């Protein structure tokens, strides 16, 4: 058994694709029409055959209250790995990305949390070199 897929639930798939590719730098892997929505996944250009991130529509009525409650308390549901949180924080801030937590030492990792503009907070983490 292996893990090949993670998902974020987004309020608008087209906007999400723009953010996750244009701003974060992922590349599109699958884009298949499914009714009114799309089966839409992205991968890291550093690992094109690695795990995919699915940008799933958040239309189910249970999803929005769930997402809003997490965001109000600053809780990221999804974590992405970066080489260096500080560098990524500066790069993304420069692109206008809003952070709810600036880089902070959390023991063995450094983390920061940003808004994906699609209703989610995303945590980035890199190992802390001491």
């Amino acid at each position, binding site marked *: 058994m292996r893990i090949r897929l993670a998902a974020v639930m987004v309020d608008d798939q087209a906007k999400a694709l723009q953010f996750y590719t244009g701003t974060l730098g992922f590349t599109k892997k699958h884009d298949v029409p499914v009714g009114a929505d799309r089966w839409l996944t992205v991968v890291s250009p550093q690992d094109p055959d690695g795990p995919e991130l699915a940008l799933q529509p958040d239309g189910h009525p249970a999803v929005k209250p769930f997402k809003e409650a997490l*965001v109000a*308390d*600053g809780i990221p549901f999804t974590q992405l790995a970066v080489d260096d949180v500080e560098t990524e924080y500066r790069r993304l801030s420069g692109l206008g990305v809003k952070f709810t*937590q600036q880089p*902070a*030492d*959390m*023991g063995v990792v450094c*983390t920061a*949390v940003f808004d994906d503009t699609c209703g989610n907070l995303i945590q980035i983490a890199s190992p802390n070199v001491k």
Partner: protein
Amino acid sequence: VAGLWRNTTLGAVSALTGKSPLAYARTVDEDVFKALADPTRRTILDELTGRDGQTLFEICGRLVTNHGLSSSRQAISQHLAVLQEAGLIEIRRDGRYKFHYINTEPLKPLRTRWVPNAMSSGPRTQSDSDTARRKENQ
């Protein structure tokens, strides 16, 4: 000057609340001392002093990783409510997010309560006192 400032503050509060200044002071004291009596709540204030304006998520993360305090998120939320009740933190909403800020204002009367000259050695100046007094009188 400090005494005058405090009396003026309490006088203004008294006029607003209809309570005697001493009764008000006692209530404020109880809330502040109760809030500060708990080590986790003091640690929360320490962490907010290091970086002001944190989400609940960041506060919980810092308590776990920096202090080994593995209280539940609900427990931390309740600690924050006690601190807010005492006026020691403020919660400010920014769009969909909630950030917690430390507020040391309720600690100021304590500085002069048992240490009469504390104000003269602190950063507060005559003009600060005047500003505070004007605010209270508005």
